[in-house]
């Protein structure tokens, strides 16, 4: 083995090692492909992809989506089928219902809360009773059984995420959950990993960006803030979320 080949081998090995370390450690922030690991794209997934396409970049310059898997073992774009195909677009876009109309404790509690079956029946005893999905709900209600929704968004373990704090800080729901109003079937929008959290806590959050992320134009006040570079900075102390 001649000297030249020898050095080639050594440097080669080193180069590969360094490259792989950096790659493995780097959390990419490229836009997500909305198709969750699956072969053919369903109508829902198509709608989702377009929804993401429409989504403006989040407050810190990217959608927060990342190829890096979080503790759920599945990454961004995860879109599990729900027991009841609840169409957010219809309720939010068409019927103009506010998020907290159903997720009522989001601004009172660490826990956003899910609507009780009874609150669905508030309307659906009158409207759209014939739809198959609505029938499912009615049936559940009559049987006094809750509906077991599949969890989509979950921060890693050992983390406290009080929704109420973020709502009071003026963070729009879509900032983390994506434009659910455009999602036929809800999918995980952000990576929800620590770097993603911290980047906002450190760099701060401007209402204008939040509004854009939510999919509507910022109001004048927000824009003035943005012009003056006003950003809401949060505490990034470890004990803020970990205790």
């Amino acid at each position: 083995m001649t000297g030249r080949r020898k050095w080639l081998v050594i440097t080669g090995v080193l180069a590969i090692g360094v490259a792989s370390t950096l790659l493995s450690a780097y959390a990419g922030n490229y836009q997500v492909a909305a198709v969750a690991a699956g072969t053919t794209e369903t109508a829902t997934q198509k709608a989702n992809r377009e929804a993401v396409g429409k989504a403006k970049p989040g407050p810190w310059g990217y959608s927060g989506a990342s190829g890096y898997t979080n503790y759920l073992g599945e990454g961004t774009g995860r879109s599990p089928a729900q027991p009841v195909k609840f169409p957010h677009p219809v309720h939010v876009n068409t019927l103009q219902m506010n998020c907290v109309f159903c997720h009522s404790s989001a601004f009172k509690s660490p826990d956003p809360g899910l609507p009780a079956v009874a609150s669905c029946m508030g309307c659906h005893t009158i409207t759209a009773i014939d739809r198959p999905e609505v029938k499912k709900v009615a049936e559940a209600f009559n049987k006094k059984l809750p509906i077991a929704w599949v969890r989509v968004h979950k921060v890693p373990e050992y983390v406290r995420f009080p929704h109420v704090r973020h709502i009071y800080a003026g963070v729009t729901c879509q900032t983390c959950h994506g434009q659910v109003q455009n999602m036929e079937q809800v999918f995980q929008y952000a990576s929800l990993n620590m770097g993603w959290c911290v980047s906002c806590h450190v760099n701060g959050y401007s209402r204008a960006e939040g509004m854009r992320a939510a999919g509507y134009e910022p109001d004048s006040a927000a824009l003035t803030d943005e012009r003056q570079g006003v950003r809401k900075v949060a505490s990034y102390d470890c004990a803020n979320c970990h205790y």
Partner: protein
Amino acid sequence: MATIAYEPKRPNIASANVQLPAVRDYEQVDDEIVATLRPSKAWFLMLMTAIACLGLGVSAFLYQLHQGLGVAGYNPPVMWGVYIVTFVFWIGIGHAGTLISAILFLFRAGFRTTIYRCAEAMTVFAVMTAGLFPIIHLGRPWKFFWLLPYPNWRLLWPQFKSPLVWDVFAISTYLTISTTFLFVGLIPDIAVLRDRETNPTRKRILSFLSFGWRNTEREWRHFARAYLFLAAVSTPLVLSVHSVVSFDFAMAITPGWHTTIFPPYFVAGAIFSGIGMVFTIIIPIRKWFRLQHYVTLNHLDAAAKLCLTTSLIVGCAYMVEFFIAWYGGVQVEQDFFWNRVFGQWWWAAWIMLTCNMILPLSLFSQKLRRNPTWLWILSIFINIGMWFERFVIVVPSLSHEFEPWQWTTYAPTWVDYSILLGSFGWFFMWFLLFVRQLPIIAIAEVKEIVAPRLKRAHAHTPDNADDYEPETPGAHN
């Protein structure tokens, strides 16, 4: 090589003029040293034993991994125990190797020539062993990589103020350098093996390892330079690595740990224990492989002197510790040292003092210095003593701290002992494999001090070269 102008009654064996009178010529060197590579039943037996011990250790570790660290004999606030003790012990063992191969090389101490390969290999394997323990002793070993500074999506870095992080760097550096040093030194010898190898596959491997050594003038020049530079690089490591390890303790405020004397004290102790281990290994080897005429009593004698010196330094360090405790007048510190030597931990302390301070004094007698059997027995005591030195530093300090309410005792469990045994299995497994694959005496360097062909006529030839043991030094010169 230089001829000997003048023959003193007792040769200055610390000089480069180390005679191997029983070694006639290069062929003999090649034959006799390569002969050590022939496997024997005894060797297989030892290897199996080593692997068995390793197996025990590994299974104990897996058990601990599953059950939790509680299965080890920790007794809070004694939060460090056998694992850290053994870690420091093995790191210490490592040092003699580098000292002998690098520092003594720079100082042209000739007696290193025939023992340094052994010591060097010992260093590498000892550091390999030591490196395991910081991970074994973790509560969550599977997260050990959090100590490494690598970019991650948590945007977190290790705490660079923590001595444990310094350890990570110190040990990895040490392992890298000493391995390289060992390997570079091996290149010409591997070439010798390659030339004598008949099996084509092994030949290919050996020729790859020897980087296609062709024994040219140019290669020798580069080789010598490289070796010198590496020696120069490793020299500071001998001092730095164990100083850093000692910071694990010296940086803490725990009485018995919080001392400025620790770095030099640890380095001396490390070399002392290392020489001990060298004796433990080299003496059987020279006997079983009949290499007494390479590793002569002169060499052992010189090494023993080194051993004695370091032992004196260590003993002095012990005394200074006690003195400072008394002189410093910190009552907590005084309580602690009293407890260490005359209280709860008297037995451990006195094992340490006897083995490391008192017994080595016997080396003042030249008779004992030149008596391999005694040296070997002593070396065992030194190994035990040095393990206990670390035990005495780690455990009693933690068991008898500021808060009397939390004073406790400490008793290892079978898990600790198994993993300790396993570490010896791991170390000796590697060493035994090494012994059978590569020359344990540096062929090239021995050749340097063998009288060259021209002088063969003058070279003295004893009738029974194999068991050549000069009764009085220099008798045969």
